[in-house]
């Protein structure tokens, strides 16, 4: 049984968090889907220090591109990628739209991974879609359900399984904080204090935790690890995880080890493992 790679992203990155991850993760995912204020102290500027530190610690570095790459935001994102490539600070990019994939043709050495939020609603990875993505140089596809592992692997694409963290029910472009305060948030309430509020409606049985830009199912556990048949483990190239802070590392480790209960639990591929684009 091969050891899976693990890629960790965080609610908020720091150099100390990276240090705490040593030996537990293959790579780190830098970049927030929506708002860099909440992931970094100094927004995008921090990404270079963090990437250099991650590199020196032997981590692979993955850039998460913003969820919405409009004519306004695409060029700054591409400029960031160019600089990261120039400084050899990036191994892979998690992409959300086909436009970014096209723009990444100028960086053939950077792996392209199709993010789980690139899919429609209750996504089903059909065979023509996987063929389409492979033709566009997508080497790994992130899925959220173990039932989709085989579909993607059978299509000849690498599989990333989102294994640990909250499941997002929906997300939008406008920050809930800004929406309610009607002013720039500057991390005033939701993101900084990690105090999400609950949005509920009586007419239909829906209740969500509203946190910045996202709605999370209120009743879902904040951490999850999908049940996984042992035969599927060998078909996974890597797992992705979202941690709120370094204090969650032991729980992540315990959850991943539990995957192999009944058998010998292999160590996760540690920092410095070779990237398989």
């Amino acid at each position: 049984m091969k050891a899976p790679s693990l890629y960790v992203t965080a609610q908020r990155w720091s150099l100390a968090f990276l240090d705490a991850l040593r030996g537990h993760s293959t790579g780190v995912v830098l970049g927030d889907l929506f708002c860099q204020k909440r992931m970094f102290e100094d927004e995008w500027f921090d990404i270079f220090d963090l990437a250099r530190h991650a590199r020196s610690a032997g981590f692979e570095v993955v850039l998460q591109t913003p969820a919405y790459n409009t004519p306004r935001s695409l060029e700054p994102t591409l400029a960031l990628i160019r600089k990261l490539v120039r400084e050899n600070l990036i191994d892979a990019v998690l992409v959300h739209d086909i436009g970014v994939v096209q723009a990444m043709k100028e960086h053939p050495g950077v792996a392209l991974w199709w993010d789980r939020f690139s899919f429609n609603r209750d996504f089903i990875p059909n065979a023509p879609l996987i063929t389409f993505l492979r033709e566009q140089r997508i080497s790994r596809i992130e899925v959220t359900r173990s039932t989709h592992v085989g579909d993607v692997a059978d299509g000849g694409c690498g599989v990333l399984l989102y294994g640990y963290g909250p499941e997002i029910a929906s997300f939008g472009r406008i920050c809930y904080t800004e929406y309610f305060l009607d002013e720039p948030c500057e991390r005033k309430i939701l993101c900084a204090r990690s105090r999400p509020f609950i949005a509920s409606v009586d007419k239909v049985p829906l209740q969500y935790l509203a946190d910045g830009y996202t709605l999370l199912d209120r009743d879902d556990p904040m951490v999850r690890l999908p049940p996984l048949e042992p035969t599927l483990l060998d078909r996974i190239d890597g797992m992705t995880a979202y941690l709120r802070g370094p204090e969650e590392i032991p729980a992540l480790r315990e959850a991943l080890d539990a995957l192999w209960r009944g058998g010998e639990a292999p160590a996760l591929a540690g920092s410095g493992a070779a990237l398989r684009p």
Partner: protein
Amino acid sequence: MSPLHPVEVLAPAGNLEHVEAALAAGADAVYVGLKKFSARPDAWSLSLDEIRTAVRMAHDARRRLHIAMNAELRDPRAADLEQSARVLEEIGVDAFIVGDFGLIHALQEAGSQVPIHASTLLGLYNAEGIRFLQRKYGVSRVVLNTNLYIDEIADLHFLCPDIELEMIAYGGVCFNDNRRCRQPHYLFEGEFCVGCKQIYDAHRGSEDLVVLGPLSKVASQVRPPEIPLQGGRLIWSPEIDLSALVGLFLKVGVISFKIEGRTRTTEYVAQSTRKLREALDRALESPELADPELNTFFYLAHPSRLRAEP
């Protein structure tokens, strides 16, 4: 303004009665779902035979019929895609509205020549993605995501001037994202239920209400004000004159104004089509729209410019 295609009101239809009502109310084009390929329940989608009839009705009235193929399919090819596409092409449908890159790929493999309209579900937000689909798959139209700002729509039009832009102008409200949403859409025995159209209460817990007011977040600035109705549902008032908004979007390059509501009543289809028809006609007749001096009105009036003024 010289649109690539006649400016149109695009009406929804979940059955042939809807098609008839939409055409009578002035729709330039009607879209229907194909059973098994539609993101709406099959009860609100049409069979190939029904589509044949609908095409005849539309073409007899010199209008167009588009086919929504936006379901999530495990294997589009297994669902008789090739045969269905061939039959639809023979019938003479005017476009496929496609919501899956895999389906676009499969249609090309099947040799389909029917124009493809890229659904919002493809998540096209930038010119790079649009140009790619146009070049490789012959996509001729993009249905704009409802959370694009109006100046971003203008940018897309300037950057991709030979792509038709369609907007969801009436009826659809996704308060987050109409693509990346895993909220349940079928809550009641297969009934299509959109949680986005409900008004939410914001609170920290059952006992601890936050004084933020009801949550009816619409993630777009392209909407007329929404009106809360009894029962906690959002809708746009029939009293609101949409012509000014329609005129703005005409100016930034939108040529198709789509109404959502394939699962609604025939009365809704007729009323909303009539309302948008009137708004579009008024906008097209307005002297402001015809005046080339006013073509930059939107940009001159943009809040970001106004803030920059001393």
